[in-house]
């Protein structure tokens, strides 16, 4: 279960719309809880180095921002967030393949779909080919 601060939800959705027509991306910072829960406190918007509506790569700015805005606040990186501009909020085959990245072990993949009139945000844990959605609970603040 991912508890997500409403401010972080708003920030990631706003960044997704701001990035149109390209996919937008960023990092999620917060605290882990128990075995597989977490409280996501901040969303850190990053540049999509691909400048593409079909793919994203976190720009080199991402890690300086992560140092300052996540680790610098005593939080840890919980996952990567990106938008799907015309498809559902479900990891693409490319996402699942990329989740094998050894830097991302234990990270969440949070998807923001802009396909429908209302944005849809979902969170997944991906291990190998196993894609498991987790419930997102919005938390005030």
């Amino acid at each position, binding site marked *: 279960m991912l508890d997500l601060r409403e401010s972080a939800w708003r920030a990631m959705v706003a960044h997704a719309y701001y990035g149109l027509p390209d996919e937008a991306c960023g990092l999620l910072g917060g605290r882990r809880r128990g075995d597989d829960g977490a409280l996501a406190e901040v969303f850190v918007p990053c540049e999509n180095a*691909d400048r593409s509506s*079909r793919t*994203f*790569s*976190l720009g080199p700015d991402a890690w300086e921002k992560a140092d300052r805005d996540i680790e610098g606040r005593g939080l840890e990186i919980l996952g990567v967030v990106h938008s799907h501009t015309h498809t559902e909020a479900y*990891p693409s085959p490319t*996402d699942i393949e*990329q989740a094998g990245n*050894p*830097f991302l072990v234990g990270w969440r993949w949070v998807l923001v779909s802009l396909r429908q009139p209302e944005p849809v945000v979902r969170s997944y844990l991906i291990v190998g080919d196993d894609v498991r959605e987790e419930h997102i609970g919005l938390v005030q603040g």
Partner: protein
Amino acid sequence: MSVTVRLPTIMRANAGGQSEISAEGSTIGEVIDDIVKQFPGTATHLRAPDGGVHRFVNVYLNDEDVRYLGKLETAVGDGDTVSIVPAVAGG
């Protein structure tokens, strides 16, 4: 040649908690070899199964992506800065 290597937070636990280390080498490939020699735990993130550099790592020499320079053969100079940057991507 001695260069300064900047490490992402994710790798620091494998490098004695340091954000910057010194490494020796005349090319990017040799610098990476030296990082792994000094801190074997960094191999998790840096080394591909075939012994090369993991495809999920981007390497910058003085802010230039080495993929657009000479890749692992890129020559480094004394005092240069090498940045190791996780490649996080998807679609």
